[in-house]
């Protein structure tokens, strides 16, 4: 999955995303924040381990991240 795909999926679920240095800061509707690496721009390839961490941070399942 690329960063651009993740942006689209999280955006649909009501998360807000803002740039923060070499990361993007994602904030859930309940205010919890987490970071997404964007060191290769919007084409950054996101790893499965990272996605598992993102799911833990926001209480999501991997199914929730399917388009």
């Amino acid at each position: 999955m690329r960063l651009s795909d993740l942006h689209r999926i999280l955006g649909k679920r009501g998360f807000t995303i803002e740039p923060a240095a070499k990361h993007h800061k994602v904030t859930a509707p309940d205010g919890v924040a987490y970071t997404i690496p964007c060191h290769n721009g919007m084409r950054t390839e996101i790893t499965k381990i990272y996605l598992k961490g993102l799911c833990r941070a926001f209480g999501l399942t991997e199914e929730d991240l399917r388009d």
Partner: protein
Amino acid sequence: MNTQPQRELFFCWAVIRPADDVPGQWVSHCLDMDVISQGNTPLEAVSMVFEATAIVASDDLMKGRNPLDRRAPAEDWEALDRLQEKCESVTNLEEFLSRLSIAENQHLALVVQFKVQVDLRTHQPAESRRISRMPALACQQVAC
């Protein structure tokens, strides 16, 4: 006189490994706050997890949350314990990595202890860097 602390300081552990599923990517995981990042090289992955941890810690503190409540699952801490038993100390991480071949790099795991400081007045990261007295640890067996 204001005696309130102006900075919050956190000491954290991070594990850095090659990604299984994305060639050329390194995954860095701060266990204390369960923050994961990535980089194109081991060193970039280290600096990325410093940055990500500082952003998350600053945001949590601004919202009255304790970033240490995020702590990684127990199995990740157990994996860290196993790694530490097999690792060797590296005083100069950059120099150590420059001596490794690409093939050796692909089987490398790194353990780094670092500190994150957040300015409580601005809720911005004040500093995030490796603890110089605590050398990095390197292990050639990713599966350990």
